[in-house]
Structures are given as structure tokens and as C-alpha cells.
């Protein structure tokens, strides 16, 4: 059995980024990488995308910040983070003790902040890629504006591109009419990879107190509820651009992950499911391996994009 397992190749290549397997953990759902390390062997992961970083530390939105919905979670964290310096000095060295690709998720309120972040992180050793978050729907200024306008996307992505040689992932928001158009803009501006989706814009209110359930009034929906929406968006992107795509949204088990790979995503990220079952990501890696084995496939790349459309 162990011998057999070794035969299945799970390595994937996304342009300049090579991953030991296609299963990463999504930004904002795995902290700075170490919180879950007593529960799982994090060096088994395809990659860890750390919590979104800004130049300065940010306090985030007023609570309440979470609402549970049917099959989903609405969050309005407001991109609370320790700031890029604290991350580089305090968090990253600990994370680098584990052998796992580290991807840094960044966001700014201005184009200049994005290029500044790129500049800072470009010089730091041990980072496998940058993921540009232009898609967080929770921050009133910044975020949402960039991610829903192709021109703004181009500006942000090229400013980051000019300031780093690191592999560049652009993470798209689903809250747009035509996500393919956004993907094209990012590719033209030099992104190596597209990841999608970030959370879906959502809201909840309390009929008894007659107040919004979130301090920020609106938030972003994640979890199993959004999986079919995410798959459709990934499909749209794949039909619009040639660069590798990372599928994100509601993935809770290996079947879900395989759905994204089947339509053509080269890798996936697991978000909300980490909260429910911290072992999800490592179990998905094993699940993909067994699925490939029992289907007589020796390489995950044979499965990726093998969706049959005729008939």
C-alpha cells in the first residue's frame, strides 16, 4: 500500500509556483500558520496562505463579526492583522521552521500601499508567492473598489508586478458581473496565477433586536453554501484566461476539491472547513490520492481539467 501510494504524483505547477500537492489553506482561516500545528502536520500541506497583511497593523471591524447561516458563515473581520513588519519579524521565522510553501496575502487602501508591500516582501527569504487580495468586501475604502473594476485591477497588479519577482497570485471577488473580465485585466497586468473566490457579499439582521447581526452591517459569506457559486466563477475564469487558477469556496472534503480540479483549477484552497475540522486539508490530500489510485490515475495532472462536455 505504501509503495503504491508513492506512485501517485500530486505535484502541481502553477506557472512559476511549484507545490508538493494541490491543497492549500486559505487566507484568514489559518492565522499565521502555527495555530493548528499541534493538530496537524502542516508540512504536509500544499501551501499556507497567511492572513491578509497591510503595511500598518489594523484593529479590524467592531464586533459582532460572525454570523452562522444555513451552510455558511458570514464574517466581517475587517482585515485585522499584525502588519507586515510584525509578520516578517515575529511570525514568519517560526513558520519557516516547517517545510511548507508560504504564500503571503496582501492588501492596501491605495495602489501605493500595494507596491510598498510588494517591495517589502520581495526582499524577504522564504516566501513562495504573493497573493494580492483585491477582493475583500468588508473594508469600505480600498478592497472592493479595486476588485470590481478592471482598470483598478490592472493598476494594482502592475504596481505589485513591478516591485517583485515573486510568483504573483491575484485573488478575485465573486461580487462582479463578469469575473472573466477581471481575470483578463489581472493577467494583462502580469499576474502569474488567479485565485478565486473570496467571500460572497452577504447580510443578516436580528428580527428581535431589529439590528444588523454584524457590527459592520454587511459581511462576506463562505462555507459549503457558496461552493456551487465558486465553481461557476472558477469555470468562467478558466474560460477567459490561460494562466493557472486556484479554486476556493466551500470546499469541505476531497470530492469538493476534485470538482474544482475537474473543471480545470490547478490547485485549491480550504477556508471555513478548517474551523469545523482542522484536519480537513490533510484528509483532502489523502482523499485525492485514494481517488486517483482507485481510478487508475498516476498523476493528479491527468485529472485536472478532464471535464467532458460533449454528450
Amino acid at each position, binding site marked *: 500500500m505504501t509503495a503504491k501510494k508513492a506512485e501517485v504524483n500530486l505535484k502541481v505547477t502553477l506557472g512559476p509556483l511549484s507545490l508538493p500537492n494541490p491543497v492549500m489553506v486559505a487566507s*484568514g*482561516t*489559518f*492565522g499565521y500558520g502555527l*495555530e*493548528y500545528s*499541534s*493538530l496537524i502536520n502542516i508540512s504536509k500541506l500544499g501551501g499556507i496562505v497567511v*492572513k491578509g497583511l497591510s503595511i500598518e497593523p489594523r*484593529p*479590524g471591524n*467592531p*464586533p*459582532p*463579526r*460572525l*454570523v*452562522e447561516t*444555513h*451552510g*455558511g*458563515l458570514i*464574517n466581517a*473581520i475587517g482585515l*485585522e492583522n499584525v502588519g507586515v513588519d510584525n509578520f516578517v519579524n515575529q511570525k514568519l521565522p517560526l513558520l519557516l521552521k516547517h517545510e511548507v510553501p508560504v504564500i503571503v496575502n496582501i492588501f492596501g487602501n491605495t495602489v501605493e500601499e500595494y507596491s510598498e508591500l510588494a517591495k517589502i516582501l520581495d526582499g524577504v527569504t522564504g516566501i513562495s508567492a504573493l497573493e494580492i487580495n483585491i477582493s475583500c468586501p468588508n473594508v469600505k475604502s480600498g478592497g472592493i473598489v479595486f476588485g470590481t473594476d478592471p482598470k483598478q485591477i490592472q493598476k494594482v497588479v502592475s504596481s505589485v508586478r513591478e516591485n517583485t519577482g515573486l510568483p504573483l497570485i491575484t485573488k478575485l471577488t465573486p461580487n462582479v458581473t463578469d469575473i472573466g473580465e477581471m481575470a483578463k485585466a489581472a493577467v494583462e497586468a502580469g499576474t502569474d496565477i488567479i485565485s478565486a473566490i473570496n467571500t460572497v457579499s452577504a447580510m443578516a439582521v436580528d428580527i428581535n433586536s431589529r439590528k444588523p447581526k454584524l457590527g459592520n452591517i454587511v459581511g462576506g459569506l463562505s*462555507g*459549503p453554501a457558496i461552493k456551487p457559486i465558486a465553481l461557476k466563477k472558477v469555470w468562467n475564469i478558466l474560460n477567459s484566461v490561460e494562466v493557472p487558477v486556484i479554486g476556493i469556496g466551500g470546499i*469541505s472534503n476531497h470530492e469538493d476539491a476534485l470538482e474544482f480540479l475537474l473543471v480545470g483549477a490547478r490547485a485549491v484552497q480550504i477556508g*471555513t472547513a*478548517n*474551523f*469545523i*475540522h*482542522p*484536519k480537513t486539508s490533510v484528509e483532502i490530500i489523502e482523499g485525492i490520492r485514494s481517488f486517483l489510485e482507485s481510478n487508475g490515475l498516476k498523476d493528479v495532472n491527468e485529472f485536472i481539467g478532464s471535464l467532458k462536455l460533449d454528450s
Partner: protein
Amino acid sequence: MPIFQEKARILKNQRVAQGVWEMRLQAPQIASAAYPGQFAMFRVRDELSPLLRRPFSFSRLNTADGTFDILYKVVGQGTRIMSALSAGDYLDILGPLGRGFRLPPKHAREIWFLAGGIGIAPFFGLLDMLRQHEIGFNITLFYGAATGEELVRCEFFEQNNCTVNICTDDGTCGFHGFITDSVERTCTLTSVPDYFYSCGPHPMQQRVMEWAKCNNLQGQMSMETMMACGVGVCLGCSISKNFFAGEQKIETGYLRVCREGPVFTIGDRT
């Protein structure tokens, strides 16, 4: 602080008061690493509905036989599902989590426990902890509930030499009114505590906070907020630092109830 994920076997699960259940679980790793005031995240069933784990404080810890108890109130889907489980069933549990109760400062002898509703849960374990200490604390429990029927195991505190003050919103038992009314009244009329521990619903905790500030008291408060991860990664359970700030201070930023809490120190002058 290592965290464990265990398939815990339910040893018993029984109704102990109106709407309140007690569950005993066999979870050796969690039980032996846990402290009173800490909590665990329960996956109520092996499905994605309800989606999130549910947090519950340890009510008693029994390290020797690798078990712990929780006391829980049935309020929604998750707790309803839990109340239908039987001895022999298994639950997937993540713990121990957060910072539990700390010992009172050296000088303290008169200790008050303020428990609102199901907020009584962690006091059983806290009492065990304090009674193990060489100092013979004088402990007074203020315990409020909506109605007498909802009171859980008051005799435990009596048997362990606590003064027990019951309050009910409807007057069916003890003092007729809110626990905070009873606390404030006792505080003015007779004595102030050297230290207090408080656990209960948010509005009660807000009044306790004001009372502590007014009377310049020190203590610890166990807080509840919505949680997604319970381990500090989602930043969803945050509470304003300002909640715990002194009279004049205004602090920006937030504390994670699941990591910096759930037990927070109040009026700490050190």
C-alpha cells in the same frame, strides 16, 4: 498550549434542571490538559449542518479518570441535537482552549462568585480549584436564574462551604430580581469582596463591569461571543479592549475571547 482533537465517548447525558443538561465525556488528552475556565469546541454531529462547532466551558474536570463534564442549556439546533445523544455515543471535541481562571491575588480571602443562568457552569471547576488551595477562602456565590426551576446543583456549593445567595427574575426562589441587584445591595449593606469571578450573559457582565469599576474591585470575568474557530485564527470572537479598560482609559483594538479569554482579568493594578 497543545490542542487536542478527540472522539470523546459520552458517559452520561442527563437533564439536571429546566432546559439544562449535563454531559460527561471520556476525553483523556483534553481532560488532563485542561484548567477550569477553559472551554472546548464541540462538533455536535458528523454533518455540515449546523456548520460550526459549539463552545462549552468545562464544568468539572476529572484528570484521574480522563473525563470532564459540561453543563449546557438547550437554546438552538446544536444544543438540541446534543440533548438527544446517549451514553455510548461519540462527539468530536477540540480542546482545551483559551485561558482559564487564575488564582486570586495573595491578599484575597473573601471571594465572590457571580453566576448568571448557565454561567454557573465553570464555577464547579473553579470551586474545586480553590478548595485544593492551602488558603481557606471564604466564598460567596451569587447565582441568578430566570426561575427556580432553572437552578442547577446549588447543594454542591453549600456542601463545599460557600454562602449561597439565590436570585430569580420571577421571585420563585431567593431574592426577587437580577443577580446584579443582589450583588450591589449586599456590597453596599454589608461587605465588599477582596476578589470576584463572574460568568453570565453579556448584559449582566456589563453591569458587573460597572459595579467593579465603581467599587474599584478586582476580579475575573468569563466572556461569551460567537466563535468560528476557537483557536485564535479567524479573529471573529473579538471583544473591544475598551470593555475591560478602567474609568479614564480608552483603548483601541480587540481581544480574542478564544485566546486572550474567555477569562479576562479586571481592575488589575499590577
